[in-house]
């Protein structure tokens, strides 16, 4: 399992951290990858810090325990960084992708993050402008693909569009909005 990639998502209850992991797994599956997506289940309620996880691999995935040292951490809500150690278990060369209006260097300074490769994108703003609501998980998929190169961007866009067309038959504006959000996040994600 040399090509196994593990991802941890941080969000708040109701923010779609679980859905993001499911969507990402689905996208990877469409590329012929083996996938796992699972949430952490606790006594969380709306707004409480929650986590969800992905494993993506070219080989079948047998491992069934929690993820302790992910190569990638995605933070859906930057305010979580004041209460949760989002870098826990993330190696020095790991990727930290954050939904925030700040630049990576600002986050590094404000939250005193050492090492790691920091990426930021204002997914909440993108979501509000393209979908009309703050649902950062969809644009974060675009940013995650740009930051990690884990799956093929064009193909993911095509698959997502097909899926949205099925889901929002009566609301075509939702399809375009979501696709635009992914595209913008892919283009606007910033690295150091």
């Amino acid at each position, binding site marked *: 399992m040399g090509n196994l990639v593990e991802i941890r998502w941080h969000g708040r209850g109701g923010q779609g951290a679980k859905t993001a992991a499911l969507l990402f797994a689905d996208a990877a599956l469409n590329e012929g990858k*083996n996938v796992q*997506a*699972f949430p952490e289940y606790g006594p969380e309620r709306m707004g409480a810090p929650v986590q969800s996880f992905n494993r993506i691999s070219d080989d079948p995935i047998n491992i069934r325990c929690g993820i302790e040292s992910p190569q990638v951490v995605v933070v859906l809500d930057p305010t979580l960084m004041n209460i949760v150690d989002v870098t826990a278990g993330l190696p020095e060369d790991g990727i930290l992708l954050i939904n925030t209006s700040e630049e990576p260097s600002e986050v590094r300074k404000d939250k005193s993050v050492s090492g790691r490769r920091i990426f930021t994108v204002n997914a909440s703003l993108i979501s509000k402008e393209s979908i009309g609501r703050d649902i950062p998980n969809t644009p974060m998929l675009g940013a995650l693909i740009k930051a990690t190169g884990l799956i093929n961007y064009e193909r993911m866009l095509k698959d997502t569009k097909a899926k949205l067309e099925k889901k929002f038959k009566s609301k075509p504006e939702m399809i375009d909005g979501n696709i635009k959000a992914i595209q913008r996040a892919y283009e606007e994600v910033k690295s150091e």
Partner: protein
Amino acid sequence: MSKIVAKTGNESMAEAMRQINPDVVAAYPITPSTEIVQIFSSYVADGLVDTEFLAVESEHSAMSACIGSAATGARTMTCTASQGLALMWEMLYIATGLRLPIVIAGVNRALSAPINIHCDHSDTMGIRDSGWIQIYSENAQEGYDNLIQAVKIAEECCLPAIVTTDGFIISHGMESMKLLEDKEVQDFIGDYKAPYTLINPQKPITVGALDFTDYYFEHRRSTAEAVLQAKDKIIKVSQEYSHLSQRKYELFEEYRLDDAQMAIVVLGSTAGTAKVVIDELRSKGIKAGLLKIRVYRPFPAEELAIVLSKIPAVAILDRADSLSTMGGPVFIDIKSALYNLEKRSKLINYIYGLGGRDTTLHHIREVYQDLQNILDTGKIAQSIKYLGVRE
């Protein structure tokens, strides 16, 4: 051609139930199996199945309704977990005694108290002497495959069967898996023709009659025989399914056991985690292996003894404690299975993962380290241990 999809364990079991299209499902929802009932009832509402769905007021009623239904010759299923299975307990024995092939899509969850919704095997281990066929699954794929097989196994044995996945770890984790075509599933399970049915004016029968001292023993003896005969039927159905699905199913799975000096025996999802550690150890030249029990009831004692007798040091991992001071139920069973052998392996027991405690690669490595110490010294320092508990 089978298609690769991403599904949670619960979705995979609900999908299997849709393809099975049972005549009757009577169920009461309980975490973490709720989604199975929820998804399946939407199939009923959408007309995707022909099933008569009974939303009952408790699990005791669910199993009672299943018994009534199965006695009429209807293909009958339900879903449950934990306290729900415990509440069914009284009726479970009646399903066996009446030889009714009811199938439960089960999800393993700890028993109260303290109340806990996460995985361990205490619930199904609590019904291990009820005569129900018990099949454990490592992942969502196996949950799906085992549930389809269980229908045929139960009907051929005239015994009830439960298939389980590990709560949350599998039930709520999404992963890649393959589905059969609806027709393949239907052709595999075939039509169910019950040997006797309650509602047949041409051939009236009595179900559930009273036995005195003069008959009860004989009836229990005949049920014991059915369980004894079940093993060969399970092997046959598993072979047929392996052929159909191109996925191998046996009473238990041997993973890198051929020349193994030490092995772990485990049920359910932790087998997958153990495989990762085994690959790691094998790459370092350490002869480690795994035996994953799939069919726990009837217990494949003779088959296990043949395989395990060749391995000098064996660790049995139990995700349930028997609270008997003798270790976990699987450990007790395996010890019994090996007792009459000339040459016996060194056995140790670990109670692990109670109430959903994560069992990581570190824990499994620790077990193999203990086994290595036993091989080196020839001594067992402590035969029953608790793995991953705060001491």
